[in-house]
Each structure stands twice: as C-alpha cells, then as structure tokens.
C-alpha cells in the first residue's frame, strides 16, 4: 500500500500571520546560516512553500518552531523556491525583482570576524548556535526545529560554543 499524506492546507490566515511575524528573523537566521542574503531568500521561500502544506495541527502545536524547521531543512537539502535552473538554462534565469532585503551594513562589517568563525562550523552546530543566540529559541523549540531531542540540543550547543570560541580566538589575533 502506498501511504500518501493528505494534502491538507492549513488555515491561510494563521500561517500568514505566523510568517508575517517571524519572516524577518527567519531571513536573518537563514542569511547567517548559508552566508548569503539572496540564497537565504530562496531557502526561506522553499521552506515556507513546504510549511504551506503542513497540516494545521503542526502549526498550532509547534508554532514558529515549525517554520524554523522548514527553513532549516530547506537550507540543508538545498531546497530553493523557485527551483534553481540547472545546466545552461541557469544563465537565462530571471532575477528576483520585487523582493529586496535590507541589511544593516555597519553591523555586517563589524561582525565580519564572527561570521568567518561561524562559517567554519558544521551546519548543525551553526544552526544550533544561531537558533539559540540569534533567534532566541528555547531547547524545546530547537529540538523541533532541528529534529532531535532536547538533550541532543544541549550537547550540540555546548560543542558548538566550544568550537566557535576556539576558532574565534584563533582568528582574532
């Protein structure tokens, strides 16, 4: 028997309000997770494209953690929306015209060393650090976003902080 999940659309108003409330933090998180603002917008769009197909109960129980889980999965699995063209046709792809993120240039230049140290971490450790210290999720929400247990989240964050501190002090002479 082929088990096919029912295509149940959540209530559009609920999802729209949730996305409207957390979209800025979602894009900020994805930008520092992948290191590029344009790629981050593609990944956030891909994650929201999947979240638009989540059952309503998931959004009601998980809340914003469901959105961060969708975006994290999109970044990890290279799920972009609209899908990136392959082959020669990528040279003819249209550029995004009506979505313009704005980044604090002063803060971006000031934290250059932090970003370099962050880029050397593995994906899971980088995601855990950003979710905790940048976004402010607690361990329970992070466990839903990273699809692991809260104990694993605690170990992941501790290891990530140790590695990040070592690399940061090594870079910043």
């Amino acid at each position: 028997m082929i088990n096919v999940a029912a295509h149940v659309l959540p209530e559009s108003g609920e999802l729209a309000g949730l996305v409207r409330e957390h979209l800025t933090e979602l894009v900020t998180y994805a930008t520092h997770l992948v290191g590029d603002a344009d790629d981050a917008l593609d990944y956030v769009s891909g994650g929201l494209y999947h979240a638009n197909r989540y059952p309503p109960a998931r959004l009601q129980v998980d809340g914003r953690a469901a959105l961060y889980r969708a975006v994290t999965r999109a970044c990890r699995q290279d799920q972009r929306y609209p899908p990136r063209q392959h082959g020669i046709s990528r040279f003819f792809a249209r550029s995004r015209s009506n979505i313009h993120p704005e980044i604090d240039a002063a803060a971006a230049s000031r934290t250059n060393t932090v970003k370099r140290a962050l880029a050397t971490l593995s994906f899971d450790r980088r995601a855990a650090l950003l979710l905790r210290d940048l976004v402010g999720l607690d361990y329970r929400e992070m466990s839903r976003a990273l699809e692991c247990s809260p104990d694993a989240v605690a170990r992941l964050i501790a290891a990530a902080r140790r590695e990040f501190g070592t690399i940061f002090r090594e870079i910043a002479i």
Partner: protein
Amino acid sequence: MRCSLLILSTSLDGELTQSRAAELEAHLVGCTRCHAGLGYLHEESERISGLARVYIPDYSVHALMAQVGIIDEDTRLPGTMPPTPPRVHPSATEPWFGHDAGKALPWAPPPRRPEAPIPEPRAPIETSPSEPVDDTHVEIAGTAVEPAQRVIEDQPIPAPDEAQTPEDEDSFDIDISQPPPIPQQLPQEAGPRFIKRIRDAIAVRWALTRGVQTDDDDSVEIVSGSGAGEWTESARQRVQRERAAQRAMSATSHIDEATVAAVSWAPPAPAPSAQPETPRPEMPTQPRPLLDWEDQPPAPAPAPVPRPSPPRTETPGRHTRIVSTGSNFSVRSWLKPRVRAPSRPHLPLGQAAATSPLADPRIWVFAGGAFLLLVIGVLTGKHTTAIPSLAQNPVASAHPSARAVPSSAPVLPPPPVATPVPTASPLQLTGTQTLGSGARGFAVTGMRYAQHAGGDFRMVFDMAPVSGATGTGLPNMVAGFGNPTTLYVIFVGVTPGADTGHLPPSVNVTNVQVLQPSPIAGHVVYEFSLSHPAKLSSSYYAGPRLVLDLTG
C-alpha cells in the same frame, strides 16, 4: 559536582533545573576555571546575538508570501496597509501614454497631434419642470448613431452663457457630478513624421500579432472527455481539426441581415421643426443599453431564424491534407512562434529540486548558436607554422639568396651547456602567495614572532599608514621560497621598519634581514632563513597586519 562545559552552557541558557543550578552556583564559588569558562561562553553568546539583522520591507513580505502561495496577490498582509511597490519603471506604463519606450516598442512614440481645446465643464443642466425630458434625444456614448446625428454631434458646443436662455432661470438644477479633468496633450513635434508613422504602425501591428499569439497556451490541454483530441492524430491533424471546428462555429453563428433588421429597434426620428433647433447641452448620464425593451414600443414578433445545418467536419486524409490547408501549411506553422504561458514552478515534496533543462527552448537556441560558432571556427581556422629562428641558420636568414647554396660542411649539433644550479633569488620564487589590494603609503612599524606547539611558527608584520596617506586598503605582498630554506617576503609601496624585531630561539627561523639595497627597484624584500623546509600560509588582518605561518 564535576566541571562540565555542558552544564555551564545549559546554565547560560537557563535550562538547568533549580537543584542543578544551585549546585552549579556553589561550584562556581570555588572553581575559577568554570567561572572563567562561563564568562567566555557569555561573550560568545553576545557575539552571535550581535550579528547583523536583515530587514524585509512590507512590500517584499507581501511579494514573497504571494510568490510562495500563502496569500493571494490581492490579499492584504495581516495588520498592514495594501502593498505598494516601491518604484515602477517608466517603461512599464503603456507606450501610448507617454514619451517613454514601452515593452513592445523599441523607441518612444511621437507626441500626439494637439486637439481642439477642451471646453470648461458645463453648468448643471437646467430643465423646465413642465417640459418632460425626452430620453430618446439623449446621446448614448458608444452606440451607433445616424449620420445626421453625428453631424450635430460634431458641431461646436456653445458656451454655457449662450445655451442658457432667460426662461431657464426658474428651472431647477440637477446635481450631476462632473467628470474628472482630461489631461492636456503635449504639442506636436515638428519635423517629418511620415517615416515615424509608418514605423509606429508596423510596430503596433507586430505587437498586436504577438499579443494574439499568447492565447496559444499549450500548457492546458484537454486529454479526456468532450473536446479531447485523439491520441492517434498528429499535431498537424489536430490543428486541421481545430480549424474545421472554428469554421463550423462561424457558419453556425451567422444570421442574415433581414433577421437582424426585424429584431433590432431604432429610436424614431425627431419631427422636423420650422425653427432652427438650439443645440441641446449634452447630458452626462450613464451609458444606457442599446436595447431597452421597457421604454420601447413592442417589437414585432421575430421570424423564425433558419439555422443552417453545420457543415460536415472534414477529416483530412493523407492526400487531402495539402489541398485543404495549402502547400505552405507546414512552413507557416513552423514559423509561428509558440509562446508558453507563465506557470508556477513546481517544487517536489520530500526530494531535491530538479527541473529538466531541456524543457526550455532557449537552451536549443543557445546550443544552435554555439554549434554555429564552432563550425565557423573550424572553417576559418588557420594552420600556424613555426617561424625559423636566426640562430639555426643565420646566413640563410640574413641572405635569402644564399639559401640555395649547398653547404659541404656537416651540421654539428650545438655543444651541451651545463645547466646552472638555481640560486636563491627573489626573482625566482616557488610556492608564491599574493595578497593585498594595491594600496600604498604604509610602513612596517614592528615585527612579532611566536613559536607554537607542534613546531608551528608565526610571524606578524604590524603596519600603519605613513603621515599623509589615507590608510585604506591593503598593500600588495608576495611571499615565496627562493629555495626550500629561504623565504622571501616582498612588499610594494611599503616603507621597511627600523628593525626586524626580536627573533626568539626557534626551530624554524634562524635569521631575518631586510635586503639593502633592494634587488627589485621600488620593492621591499625581507629574507627569512629557515632551518628546514616548511609550509607557508599567509593572510591579512585588520590594522593592517600580515600574518605568516610556517608549519612542518
């Protein structure tokens, strides 16, 4: 309680239970190591939280959510105003509204001919209450009028003071809102306009032709049920079947003129009057339907319309295909561009995004162009021959006439020349690394050295801008090995420091010196003598500071 980074990190996040938190507090009183570690963790947490934030404007939020499909494009964001795009390119507006080039026209259209001055809005229409309003004389916008009425319509409208007669003073006003002001046209451009008019006419027709062809949407196709094509028929047969169906529809919808004349109704002509009729002011009412059956006399019963029988749908066969469609049918269908309708891209669930690159027709255009360039390159390519050097036959080269004279002396191979042993020189470096952005006006203020565990050795060049320099950018630097145990660091636009610093006893570097005079004019060359071959890595840091690491 034992020292644990996991407990410290969990405590920093406030996720420890009360009992464990109390134990940790007691432990931190006596353990300076854990106390310092908690401070480090707190600093790193603050560094992460100080990363730059990305702000998404409301119109971008709306565009992204509409693109994903969470909301419709016309839906407002919850708790916000309707989205307003930040800027609209002038070419996005219709080309016939302005002087900018539109999407369909590669040039700006000429300005319009100045029309007659638009009169001022007329005063409210005053009608005598005793006189009934005759609706049949009111001109209806957009309807067909008789030629006599059109002549009256083209006459100039009198001014309000002329149209208003003294007996209208005791009439009542009808409150009718005035239409919005009509924008004035710009003056006509001087100069020859014949070529421009022809050019615009061709461009407009070409744009209209392309616009009509966008209806040819092949992304939606009926595959079953009524209207579905036969799977066994070819594309050409399908087009022929659709044309035959269109001809049948046009023949069925045809109604003879007698039937139309019997059904239609025209308003009665006004009675001729001896006095010259004063032109009535036009009443700006809403357009009424052409056939208003309630205010009109009963029309005669329409005669039964003979419906012609639908023609037999011809099924083109193998031999009737050319006859029915013309000999150049295939050429016309091939030349007709097929425009794909924009559709929402599909992102598969649960798997990586993948699209077929061959589905895009532009790929084939690009491939065709590349193949054409390849063929042109192969056909026009030239065979190159080596130029004879003067060293091989100097006499023949100097005197072409002596080339035919045979030489009796045998040609001896040149004597072998011993290859010189490579010496250490800044001009012949191996494993070079280049850094910098070409800035000038820096001076080396100091040099520092550090021996790390594992045999690694670090050298730091501290630099600062000299007086009068801007100090922006990084000076160019080239580092490389003259031989395995000699490292050269070459700066451009940098003044060397007074000394090379204190070199600590190390196992890597034995001596440091600045080559005076510089073997390369305008460059500063530092020479490092190594005790054994090592691997070099270099990088610039803010300050600027140049850091060289020797490993191995």
